[in-house]
């Protein structure tokens, strides 16, 4: 029988260390909505989403109450719109973004992901329409998230699309400049994008997925930090064991919530995403875990090693706790959403280059990084290309969610609000990469991708 101490431990994790389930994301296939008439397509999309997800928020809240565990977000991911709308006779998909936004509002979810295109090897005509629609779509909607997969280990990097996305990110920033360029916070580019990721902005419902599916993202940086406080000064074996055991406990809660949601919604369970996801709240920070390991500030020498061991042991503990693990499953290091990261940037301990190095050992890449609004589109493409190369060569997911804040310069502060937090504008290396980016074409797949 369960003991009082165990009950106390769990409730302390929830109350003091902010243990929560970060998101229940309902993936919905929209492939059967295809229609050559855009109005009919929009109607089918709206009807399908609102019908399939009508009980999502209510069920999430019931589970929260009964188990006493907060479920912070209930969200929806859909089939990449460039695929759904490919047969449509139109030159803009902005109206589809509006439809997604309306549907999300109707069912009460705060974000809907899937205004996406997969162009790792090349763009078809539908992908081109989607990419061109992104700035206006993100400026005119609140809840829609967009992602574009630009490269993969198997195919190499589509440098034409990398070049284009530098421009699209700038345009999106311009289109939302009255709101600190927040449109870019809802836009992410990937290398090796996972098709079952429950986290925004990069969630979409992959084409290899079934009709609908429940994916769950767990969290709990605060719990890991609290656990590490008990092993101060101990060796790495002890450190790793502690992370592993904590990750196991966190993930078990995610698994329970996922199974319960799947049963109540009568939707199959897909995966648990083992990512440690910070929030702007004090004590819910990845940077603070790194500091607890013995670094003065995130970004100090040793940071990459500390992040590598954290990420690896979260996976080792988490894998045993869940029957299916997927999605991104790594540590998130978004600057604006992590109080410790913000402090590290402000103190001058953490640079864009160090963050890039850190993305070699964790899954998500350059995330929620605010840069000066006058950064050129080629420089943004260059930053993307570097990150894509890390993903491609290391057979891992990497991403870039970068916000050139129009009208702001290095050292200024930008406020996004809510879960997106605030961020100091970071310094960018402005030596030109224009000629490199303007070459166009593709970077071929790396030699170790030929495994057959």
């Amino acid at each position, binding site marked *: *029988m*369960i*003991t*009082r101490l*165990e*009950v*106390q*431990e*769990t*409730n302390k994790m929830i109350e003091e260390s902010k243990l929560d389930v970060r998101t229940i994301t309902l993936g919905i296939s929209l492939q059967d909505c295809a229609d050559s008439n855009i109005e009919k397509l929009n109607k089918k999309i709206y009807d399908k989403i609102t019908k399939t997800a009508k009980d999502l928020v209510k069920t999430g809240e*019931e589970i929260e*109450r*009964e*188990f*006493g*565990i907060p479920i912070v977000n209930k969200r929806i991911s859909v089939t990449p719109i460039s695929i759904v709308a490919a047969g449509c006779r139109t030159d803009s998909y902005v109206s589809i973004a509006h439809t997604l936004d309306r549907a999300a509002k109707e069912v009460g979810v705060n974000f809907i992901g899937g205004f996406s295109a997969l162009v790792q090897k090349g763009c078809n005509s539908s992908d081109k329409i989607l990419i061109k629609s992104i700035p206006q779509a993100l400026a005119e909607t609140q809840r829609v998230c967009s992602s574009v997969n630009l490269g993969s280990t198997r195919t190499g990097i589509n440098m034409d699309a990398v070049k284009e996305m530098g421009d699209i990110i700038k345009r999106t920033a311009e289109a939302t400049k009255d709101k600190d360029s927040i449109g870019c916070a809802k836009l992410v580019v990937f290398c090796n994008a996972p098709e079952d990721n429950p986290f925004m902005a990069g969630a979409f419902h992959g084409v290899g997925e079934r009709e609908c599916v429940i994916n769950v993202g767990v969290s709990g940086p605060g719990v890991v930090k609290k656990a590490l406080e008990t092993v101060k000064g101990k060796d790495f074996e002890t450190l790793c064991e502690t992370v592993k055991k904590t990750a196991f*406990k966190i993930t*078990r*809660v995610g*698994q*329970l919530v996922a199974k319960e949601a799947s049963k109540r919604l009568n939707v199959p369970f897909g995966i648990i995403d083992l990512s440690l996801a910070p929030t702007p709240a004090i004590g819910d920070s990845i940077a603070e875990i790194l500091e607890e390991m013995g670094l003065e500030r995130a970004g100090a020498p040793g940071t990459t090693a500390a992040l590598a061991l954290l990420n690896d042991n979260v996976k080792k503990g988490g894998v045993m706790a869940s029957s299916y693990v997927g999605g991104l499953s790594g540590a998130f290091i978004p600057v604006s959403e992590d109080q410790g990261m913000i402090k590290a940037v402000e103190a001058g301990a953490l640079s864009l280059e160090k963050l890039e190095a850190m993305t070699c050992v964790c899954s998500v890449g350059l995330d929620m990084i605010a840069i000066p609004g006058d950064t050129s589109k080629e420089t943004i493409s260059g930053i993307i290309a570097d990150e894509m190369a890390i993903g491609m060569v290391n057979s891992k997911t990497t991403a870039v969610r970068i916000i050139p804040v129009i009208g702001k310069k290095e050292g200024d502060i930008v406020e996004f609000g809510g879960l997106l937090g605030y961020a100091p504008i970071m310094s960018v290396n402005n030596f030109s990469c224009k000629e490199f980016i303007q070459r166009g074409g593709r970077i071929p797949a790396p030699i170790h991708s030929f495994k057959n």
Partner: protein
Amino acid sequence: MKGIITVVGKDRVGIIAKVCTLLSERNINILDISQTIVQGFFNMMMIVDLSNSTETFEKNEEDLERLGEKIGVVIKLQREEIFNTMHRI
């Protein structure tokens, strides 16, 4: 269905009595109680069987929370599974 009730707060006369009265009125059976008081701080855990409860889980949870507010302690009712899943393989 089993639930775990936790009561945390400053000790005073009649905490257990008040919680137990509410439970008995709703036909909720207590399977186990354990409690300690450290420096005047009351900490109790109960395992209860809600299978024959006359009220829904949600209503029980809400009313216990309200009772806690009235007598100045924090009372939570949670399904047992969250603890079992976390602490038992």
